[in-house]
């Protein structure tokens, strides 16, 4: 019995040792976002301090982060929705007709270095006067989201028994309406997985937005990065900005933990 307690204690000790390094950067970021500059640059580092809201004021009032947040939301939401519109039928077709080559073709977009298309986009979008436009940004983010949708959804559709659609088709539905009215409603969890993952990856994207957006369409990751270009880094404000930008992805992950795991492990694990 004693040995059992000892093993359990050791195990939870190990868990704590794993959790601390994972969580510490988030905790420190959150703490620093409520510190004054004096508290942040103090030596030794302060764990106890009087929290202030000044950094968040700076982020939202002086820097107009709401504007960048709006941009990030527009770009990510529209890119994900368009990717679902293109990706779901493609994933269905790949699953039903075993279109292996097609699936590889679309998945290559997930593996390729983004910068090898970013440079030509930059040239073409500037010629078309589409720099700093939502459309250029959304198109670029769709290339992140679309392969994820196909990657997650084609095995998912593959696992749904064909009989379900066929039953609907016997009742007079066309195959496309059987897909829309029978298969899609049954695929809620898969769609949630694809949506969550592609939203997060689009939300976090730095390089595409860095090149294709300027003041009007600037997204959050660029806005946070630009904070650093001041002569003296205002660490508190930067940390508050980091909290603001990470919050949505973290909240989504907490809500949809199971789906995110499912999405991340698709393709690497059998079944």
């Amino acid at each position: 019995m004693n040995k059992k307690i000892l093993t359990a204690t050791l195990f939870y000790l190990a868990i704590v040792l794993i959790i601390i390094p994972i969580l510490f950067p988030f905790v420190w970021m959150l703490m620093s976002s409520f510190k004054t500059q004096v508290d942040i640059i103090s030596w030794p580092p302060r764990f106890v301090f009087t929290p202030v809201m000044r950094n968040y004021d700076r982020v939202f009032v002086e820097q107009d982060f709401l504007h960048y947040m709006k941009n990030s939301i527009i770009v990510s939401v529209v890119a994900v929705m368009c990717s679902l519109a293109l990706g779901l039928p493609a994933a269905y077709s790949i699953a039903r007709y075993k279109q292996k080559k097609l699936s590889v073709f679309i998945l290559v977009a997930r593996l390729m270095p983004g910068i090898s298309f970013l440079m030509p986009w930059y040239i073409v979008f500037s010629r078309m006067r589409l720099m700093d436009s939502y459309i250029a940004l959304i198109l670029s983010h769709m290339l992140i989201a679309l392969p994820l949708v196909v990657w997650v959804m084609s095995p998912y559709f593959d696992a749904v028994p064909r009989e379900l659609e066929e039953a609907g088709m016997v009742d007079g539905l066309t195959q496309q309406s059987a897909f829309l009215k029978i298969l899609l409603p049954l695929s809620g969890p898969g769609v949630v997985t694809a949506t969550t993952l592609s939203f997060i990856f689009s939300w976090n994207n730095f390089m595409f937005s860095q090149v294709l957006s300027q003041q009007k369409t600037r997204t959050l990751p660029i806005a946070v990065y630009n904070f650093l270009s001041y002569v003296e880094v205002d660490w508190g404000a930067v940390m508050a900005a980091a909290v603001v930008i990470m919050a949505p992805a973290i909240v989504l992950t907490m809500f949809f933990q199971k789906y995110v795991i499912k999405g991340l492990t698709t393709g690497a694990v059998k079944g």
Partner: protein
Amino acid sequence: MIRQGFVEKNLRILFPLPAVIFVVILMVFPVGYTFFLSFTDWTLTSGRPLQVVALKSYLQVLKEPRFVQALGRTFYFTFAAVLVEMVLGTALALVLHRNFVGKGLMKTLLLLPLVATPVAIGIVFNLFYDPTIGILNYTLSVLGLPQSGWVSDAATVMPSLIIVDIWQWTPMITIIVLAGLAGLSSEPYESAMVDGANSRQVLVRITLPMLMPTILTAVILRAIDALKTYDIIYSMTRGGPGYASENLNVLAFKYSFEYFRMGQSAVMLVFLFIIVMAFSLLVMRLRRIFEL
């Protein structure tokens, strides 16, 4: 006979068509254009029209020490980061593969680094790494160890960046290996129990070999992303100090969007493209071998 409409008859073409057209326009054409540009000496700011110069840009790039170093650094970063992530990630998964109170919460915590915005993570680590106010140098001084310049010192910048990658992506391996462990069949374990194997033998002879396909796929997928690392490096050091942390992606970015030497940048992109594609072919080959 069920009468089929036009859409139904051609569903297998019509359904994927929009996605295919999209990928052709936004990926295939641009990549082709990049290949074409690599045979020119085009510089956007010079005002000269683009000239096809065959392999001249290739020679210039191959002679450029910054390129050769960035190429080596790309492999160094990927190899070091992914090796540690593989060992640490698998070890964590083996520790966590049991039922315990708070397992769901633990999995959520593991996901946090993966979904955190890399740029923001880079900035937070810059605060840790700051030589004068950073908590890491403070910890070293408390322990009586010599302090480090971390990302501000050319000698330590790469390991410091690799640590950030390890922090962010080790959980990815853990999550995938955990899923792999959950899917292992129990039969080999039962016969091992009957044969009286000890837990180390079970781990080395049964668990790890059965997990190999999962681990390998996870590692190669991770390596493909590590080869393309950009966000963390650019946001933390912009490739500095000097050029000490430039990898291929960062260098090509600077050539494209800071120096506007499109021809030479295209050459670098071709190299990066070929390396990444080679790894991708490897992952596809493996998937076929293991029927994943």
